[in-house]
């Protein structure tokens, strides 16, 4: 009966109830929209980083990490590679020879890391091959060995496709070495900082010029990224001499960004819940004050205060039970839609690129957030109607009945 009266009571002032319902749903919608966009951004940043330069796991010689010595190549390369290639969770593995080099064209100079790679292997690990202007991933070339540079570097060096580039560095024997390459294609990832300092050449070309016959880095991507830590532990167990790191260890800033995001989201949720609470307190207070006489009558004829209290509480629960699903369904549909079609922010593309983001964002939301929001909305609405409900209990029936 109390349910019934409470439910009917909320439709007495339809305009007010709908205003509150819409306000609550919009609050939920806004909150989930922000959280899903932020999650989408963060996921994208993480995936971009993994797919362009971090990969899931990297193997280095312990000394290489300390001194970046040209000769600190991975000692057990063959064994490691065959172990990784046999592993069922391996998606791709690429070996790289990385040499810091001075790079120059007729139009400019710069410092760059030359990555000597095997294009077919690298394709399995990073997506540089997909970021090319012409799709020539060190494949077609004439006499001079091919090199890939980024758009950013190309601008700096005043280079384009077919420009000849000279790279100089110290070789394995401490002598100065020079390689002359021809730009065969230009890439551009979503991370301009990375782009500026990386160039790609064929592994065998770089080995020949530098006389370093080995590699400094093995990068691995996995089929199931949840298994990263487990894979890493297996590798460490088999090859304790090597330095083996997962993406979290290589690029801890990706994880910090997540933590930061969590904090921002919590603040956002608190703000939304506060707005919701004010809305409900206000509405229910009005509903109580408007119905003083009726509530006084109910107490007079024998409805005890506990029931009066719960009647008011149920009214606001009903409001949030209508508003909650409305907001959640709307958010779900919007997130599904934009999650597949993406939100196009190309007008801000440059700014986004400088922090490793692309201009189309795909919002995504963990199912837990829907549950969290539902629980928060219902509990906030219950908490915030307590004050108005207590107000109703303080009514003196004899007094309220006197008022016309």
């Amino acid at each position, binding site marked *: 009966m109390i349910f019934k*009266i409470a439910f009917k009571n909320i439709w007495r002032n339809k305009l007010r109830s709908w205003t509150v319902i819409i306000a609550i749903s919009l609050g939920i919608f806004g909150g989930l929209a922000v959280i899903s966009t932020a999650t989408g951004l963060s996921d994208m940043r993480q995936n971009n980083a993994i797919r362009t330069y971090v990969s899931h796991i990297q193997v280095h010689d312990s000394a290489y990490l300390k001194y970046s010595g040209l000769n600190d190549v991975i000692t057990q390369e063959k064994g490691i590679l065959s172990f990784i290639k046999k592993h069922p969770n391996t998606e791709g593995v690429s070996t790289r020879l990385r040499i810091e080099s001075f790079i120059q064209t007729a139009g400019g100079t710069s410092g760059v890391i030359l990555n000597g790679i095997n294009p077919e292997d690298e394709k399995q690990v990073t997506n540089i091959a997909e970021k090319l202007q012409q799709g020539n991933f060190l494949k077609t070339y004439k006499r001079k060995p091919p090199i890939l540079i980024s758009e950013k570097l190309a601008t700096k060096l005043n280079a384009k496709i077919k420009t000849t580039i000279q790279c100089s560095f110290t070789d394995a024997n401490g002598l100065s070495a020079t390689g002359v390459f021809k730009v065969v294609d230009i890439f551009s990832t979503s991370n301009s900082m990375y782009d500026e300092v990386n160039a790609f050449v064929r592994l065998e070309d770089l080995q020949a010029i530098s006389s370093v016959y080995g590699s400094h880095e093995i990068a691995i991507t996995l089929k199931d990224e949840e298994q990263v830590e487990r894979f890493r532990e297996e590798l460490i167990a088999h090859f304790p001499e090597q330095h083996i790191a997962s993406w979290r260890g290589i690029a801890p800033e990706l994880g910090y960004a997540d933590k930061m995001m969590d904090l921002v989201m919590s603040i956002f949720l608190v703000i939304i819940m506060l707005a919701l609470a004010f809305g409900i307190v206000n509405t229910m207070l009005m509903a109580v004050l408007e119905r003083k006489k009726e509530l006084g009558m109910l107490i007079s004829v024998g409805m005890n205060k506990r029931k009066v209290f719960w009647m008011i509480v149920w009214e606001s629960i009903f409001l949030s039970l209508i508003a909650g699903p409305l907001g959640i369904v709307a958010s779900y549909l919007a997130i599904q839609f934009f999650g597949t079609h993406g939100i196009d922010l190309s007008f801000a593309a440059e700014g986004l690129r400088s922090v490793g983001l692309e201009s189309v964002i795909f919002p995504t939301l963990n199912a837990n957030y829907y549950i969290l929001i539902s629980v928060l909305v219902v509990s906030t609405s219950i908490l915030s109607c307590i004050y108005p409900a207590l107000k109703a209990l303080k009514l003196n029936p004899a007094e309220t009945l006197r008022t016309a």
Partner: protein
Amino acid sequence: MIQASNIHKTYNDGKVKVHALRGIDVEIKEGEFTAIVGPSGSGKTTLLNIVGGLDTPTLGEVHISDTNIAQLSENELIDFRLNHIGFVFQSYNLIPVLTAKENVEFLMLLQKRDEEERNERTTKLLKAVGLEDQINKKPNEMSGGQQQRVAVARALASKPDFVLADEPTANLDSKSTANLLDIMLRLNEEENITFVFSTHDQRVIDRAKRVITVEDGKILSDETR
């Protein structure tokens, strides 16, 4: 039986003190049909509120059916009113979102009576007040006279010992007033229901069996016809 002895009520309205009741002794027995009359401001509402346990006297004691209601806690008092006293108000005060039937049923639900009894009694009471064809109407779909008849049916639903009505006919036209009085008198005579009501309408006073006149918070006269 209601016994009120030496009832004083002083309202402290800011700095002004209003002595609404100044020493009232009154006894109301089962089966009475009693009018409390007096000019506006004489203390009728205050007296009915105190006698019905809606308000507490500044001095004096009220015993209803052998219970000293001053000794009940707030919640016990609400329960006591639910089970012992029926109220009818000047402005009907039905629950606006419920139908006539649901309004009558309401107190029985609070009393946790079973469905069969509720239905039977609701039908019987709405018939007794002549509203058997209006059971599914909401208050705002009924006339004032009809609403007040629903209010009488509601007051009786909880099987109270007494029905207290503060100016029940003040908002009604003369035809509805006569009609409501007919119904109340018949219930009083056929079912031995006790009615205590305040009024200053002479046509209502004429039909009362006992008339208590109050003035300035005191009983001026008390005659049983």
